[in-house]
């Protein structure tokens, strides 16, 4: 009888191994971003602005936007973001979305000048570890034809202890869901770079380092 109970207990233990849920706090403040800002718009020229809205988990959502110009005599703008420079001067360009009763507005100052001038072409940041694994270094991201170049500085170091370390571009520092996987980390010390096609400077907010097979976040770098 005692032996039967012992064998029954063995069976119960072996069956008590079900897949359950682990929860991750992946909330981020929603963000409305103008993808292609410029500093100066040439007189009598037009320019098509575009926006992207990222929801409370950093995923892109297509929702209706309202474009406005604070000075319609200088710059007019249509509801799909097409701006027309009418006279010399300045105007505040704003875009607003309404998501779940939350009004989110992003704006920037635009000058009308003799010719159109692109905005910033370079952003930067610092990679820092968020774990006990070594990960550190500076980086610069530059806009290039057809994509971006992520240049990691020579003060970069990463632990070689974790298998499957991958680098991502993301709008959520806590999750790779919806992130763009750049690829496996192949350099663990010193300067190196990544070319990422079909991406612009304003598409993402973070560089993320994850141990992909085991979903362990190793570190990140906010793109400033």
């Amino acid at each position, binding site marked *: 009888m005692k032996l039967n109970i012992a064998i029954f207990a063995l069976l119960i233990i072996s069956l008590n*191994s079900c897949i359950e849920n682990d929860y991750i706090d992946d909330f981020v403040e929603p963000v409305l971003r103008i993808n292609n800002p410029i500093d100066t718009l040439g007189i009598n020229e037009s320019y098509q602005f575009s926006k992207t809205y990222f929801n409370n988990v950093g995923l892109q959502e297509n929702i209706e936007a309202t474009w406005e110009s604070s000075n319609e005599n200088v710059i007019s703008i249509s509801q799909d973001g097409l701006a027309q420079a009418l006279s010399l001067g300045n105007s505040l360009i704003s875009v607003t979305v309404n998501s779940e009763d939350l009004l989110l507005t992003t704006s920037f100052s635009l000058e009308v000048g003799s010719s159109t001038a692109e905005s910033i072409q370079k952003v930067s940041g610092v990679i820092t570890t968020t774990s006990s694994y070594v990960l550190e270094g500076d980086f610069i991201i530059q806009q290039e034809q057809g994509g971006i170049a992520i240049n990691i500085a020579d003060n970069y170091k990463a632990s070689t202890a974790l298998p499957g370390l991958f680098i991502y571009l993301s709008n959520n520092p806590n999750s790779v869901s919806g992130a763009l996987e750049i690829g496996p980390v192949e350099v663990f010390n010193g300067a190196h770079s990544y070319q990422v096609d079909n991406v612009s400077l304003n598409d993402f907010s973070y560089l993320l380092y994850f141990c992909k097979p085991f979903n*362990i976040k190793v570190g990140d770098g906010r793109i400033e």
Partner: protein
Amino acid sequence: MKNIITTILLLVATTSIFAGGPWPQKKGKGYFKLSEWWVVFDQHYTDAGRIDPNITTGVFNTSLYGEYGITDRLTAIINAPLISRNYNNNLVSLTTNEVLIQGESINTIGDIDLSFKYGLTSHSNFPISISLLLGLPTGTTGGGTLGNLQTGDGEFNQMIQLDAGSGFKIGKTNAYISSYLGFNNRTREFSEEVRYGVEAGAGLFNSKLWLVGKLNVIESLKNGSTAESVTSTSLFANNSEFSSLAIEANYYITDKVGISVSAAGAIRGEIIAAAPSYSFGVFYDMNK
């Protein structure tokens, strides 16, 4: 982290005065155990020895362990995880309640260890034995969509081990103490290891109940490959090491049949689970 799973299997080893240790089985006698061993962990020791979180991972092994005396000095030993289950939990968004990464599992046979133990001394109060262990890569590696599930480490290893110990009495209570020192040579660019440990046990109630305490240590020589020296997408972590404490109780229900329970956990480690493991088994002891 793959090594996290395989190395923690070593946290509990079947040993008592009737199995394991420096004592070979007598010719024609043996000790057999059917057991369930498991660990569920959501954090691990990093390469810096600190504790970091990870997605909850479980390993459940249903194993058959057996020792059989070929001669009075030579014992054949097998440790076979007949059913080995490895799973990861779902990863769910706290914000949207959506499953971000689907949990997965595999159920296969695990890595089988075969070994031969030879008693260097016979009828001694201080027996010494030498063992050769062959670790067969019969388990599965790279299971699941992400290749992160495993029931084996995919490498063949051979370990040579010296055991020494002594049985004695404390009053009317039978007791023993033993220790071992081993060198584990591993293939496929895994680091080699030095293993050592000590255990002590006492048989209470006319030796019907054996209580055992163990200290096991694995020191990695850290001479294997890393993510930098092999392919960047390699899933093989390396250089795991730990010190663990274990307690075990073996109770004879009849003269020959009993139950065994144990718990073990790392008190220090690198690239290894930071959670206790447990086992429960039924054994058959031909020596009694």
